[in-house]
């Protein structure tokens, strides 16, 4: 069996909170196989973005990786020196963000930024790197690619800027692409174009993708498997169909039911009561217990174990464990 493109085991990342530190990612484990798309899903503050940043050691200070193991291809990421880590980013794994404007330098042309990214890792002439950049722009379906390489970021629309970011991320043919809310800032018709592009590129290049998003519709479009996070922990994991059509964790079920949908109308939307508790109020047991409509008396006190529902489907929930035992 080939090594996963990314494997994360027991990851703990903390941020200062009051007098101590809050473990905003608390013992998270998952893997992404080569050529596979795994979606890490959850609402604001669940820790999905910090998890993604941790895998490339990009957690901003004063955040800190406390424990765990991250392997990219065969490489143990957390044991690399800073220069080794820098040379690996882009080559082994690249990242695209929600807001392309903050990732592009406004005073350089977009072409020069891609050329520089290529030449940072490979000894190629400027002309050769430019020719590669034009090809990359064509690959991400940027119209008039030869002219657009000389454009400044502000001259491009949001959709075109995100295409530039994807071209830059794929420039060195990384084995893993981490996409953090890649279409969230885009209008829906532009989002559809970018999703179509990502699906086509993923098929052509067989790049593994770790997709970070709150949008279950985007997940359905791109993901092979889904991992759901809540308050720093993974609560459910399974194939796209297992999670979207057969969710078992009460949080995943609540999330799916609270989504207004094009196909439904009239009846009140199911709500998840209350709000996500801040880290200072996390109970020793299940962190969803205070909002859970089916919580048992011991849910808030004891951490739920992982219940295996199929070879690919798991849920961390006392209620699911009881249902399965029955």
């Amino acid at each position, binding site marked *: 069996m080939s090594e996963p493109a990314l494997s994360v085991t027991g990851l703990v990342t903390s941020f200062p909170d009051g007098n101590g530190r809050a473990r905003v990612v608390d013992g998270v484990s998952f893997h992404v196989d080569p050529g596979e798309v795994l979606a890490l899903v959850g609402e604001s503050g669940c820790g999905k973005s910090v998890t993604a940043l941790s895998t490339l050691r990009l957690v901003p200070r004063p955040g800190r990786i406390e424990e765990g193991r991250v392997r990219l291809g065969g490489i143990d990421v957390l044991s690399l020196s800073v220069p080794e880590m820098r040379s690996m980013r882009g080559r082994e794994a690249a990242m695209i963000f929600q807001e392309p404007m903050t990732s592009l330098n406004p005073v350089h042309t977009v072409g020069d930024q891609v050329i520089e990214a290529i030449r940072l890792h490979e000894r190629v002439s400027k002309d050769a790197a430019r020719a590669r950049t034009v090809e990359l722009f064509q690959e991400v379906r940027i*119209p008039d690619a030869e002219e657009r390489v000389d454009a400044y970021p502000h001259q491009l629309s949001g959709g075109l800027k995100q295409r530039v970011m994807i071209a830059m991320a794929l420039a060195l043919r990384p084995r893993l692409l981490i996409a953090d809310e890649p279409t969230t800032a885009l209008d*829906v018709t532009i989002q559809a*174009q970018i999703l179509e592009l990502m699906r086509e590129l993923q098929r052509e290049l067989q790049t593994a993708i770790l997709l970070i998003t709150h949008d279950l519709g985007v997940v359905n*479009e791109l993901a092979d498997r889904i991992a759901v996070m809540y308050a720093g922990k993974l609560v459910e994991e399974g194939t*796209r169909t297992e999670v979207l059509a057969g969710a078992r964790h009460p949080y995943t079920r609540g999330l799916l039911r609270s989504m207004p949908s094009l196909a439904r109308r009239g009846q009140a*939307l199911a709500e998840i009561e209350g709000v996500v508790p801040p880290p200072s109020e996390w109970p020793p047991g299940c962190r969803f217990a205070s909002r859970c409509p089916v919580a048992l008396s011991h849910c808030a006190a004891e951490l739920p174990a992982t219940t295996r529902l199929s070879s690919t489907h798991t849920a961390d929930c006392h209620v699911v464990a009881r249902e399965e035992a029955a």
Partner: protein
Amino acid sequence: MSGALLRVEGLRTWFPVRAGVLQRPVGWIRAVDGVDFEIPAGRTLALVGESGCGKTTVGRSLLRLEEPQEGHIWFDGVDLAALPPAQMRAYRRHMQIVFQDPNASLDPRMRVRDAIAEGMRAFGIGDGAAERDDRVAALMARVQLDPAQRHRYPHEFSGGQRQRICIARALAVEPQLIVCDEATSALDVSIQAQILNLLRDLQVDLGLAYLFITHDLSVVRYLADRVAVMYLGQIVEEGPAERIFEAPQHPYTEGLLAAVPSVDPGRRGLAARVRGDVPSPRHPPPGCRFHPRCPKVFDRCPQEEPPAYAVGEGTSRCFLADPEGA
């Protein structure tokens, strides 16, 4: 004569593009360029479209937060567009607005009690501080906030709770119509569901009319009686919500609906039917403004501007709806 609470006719709000030392206008951004619609008392019209289509400017023009160049805003038989500013102020009592970002609309130094009571004081509602205080408590309970927390400051509340505060503040002056400008767009889905349900309950109980401005079509289906779709400053299609979703007539509406990803795992692979980007509202394309992106474009489209043809209890600005044949 229809018995509409609000009837908008031929609304035009253009913004000057200024240049040079003298800041002379050198062109116009046609943000709202000839818009007609009406909202009966107690009903919801959703105004949908992508960024830059002018939907927010429509909402702001109704309250004269932007000054329209042309057109009529009939509210309860009075043309608000023709009112002198002093009289317009009095009408703001009947028409309130709730924005996307509750942080920007709440003064961080003002206690929640005072924020909610501000409008009551301005319009002389409530007899003295004690009565106003009672009303604040009742309003907070109405939007499911704890009245005991009325002495707190906005930062002590979560994002969803702050949006409830904004809704309570709008309700305080007993409006007949509330403009909700992307009022749930910044919220997580589980919180969005709470706010959408609240808005619906309030409509049933108080007979409120809503102009619900949003880019999110799935929210629209949940809430709207009628839907108006905007593109580059114009309403391209308008009609009953069910009909718009089941049988869209305008190719832009079709494209918008096709671009919304579904969470049904059996329905994957959405089609990006609408190509390219939205052109600048400073130089809208000749003829039909949508023709450069339209998958159904034909020779007539770039040459003539389509009027709003009557179709399916609504209108469509597309030659395909021309009863004389396309």
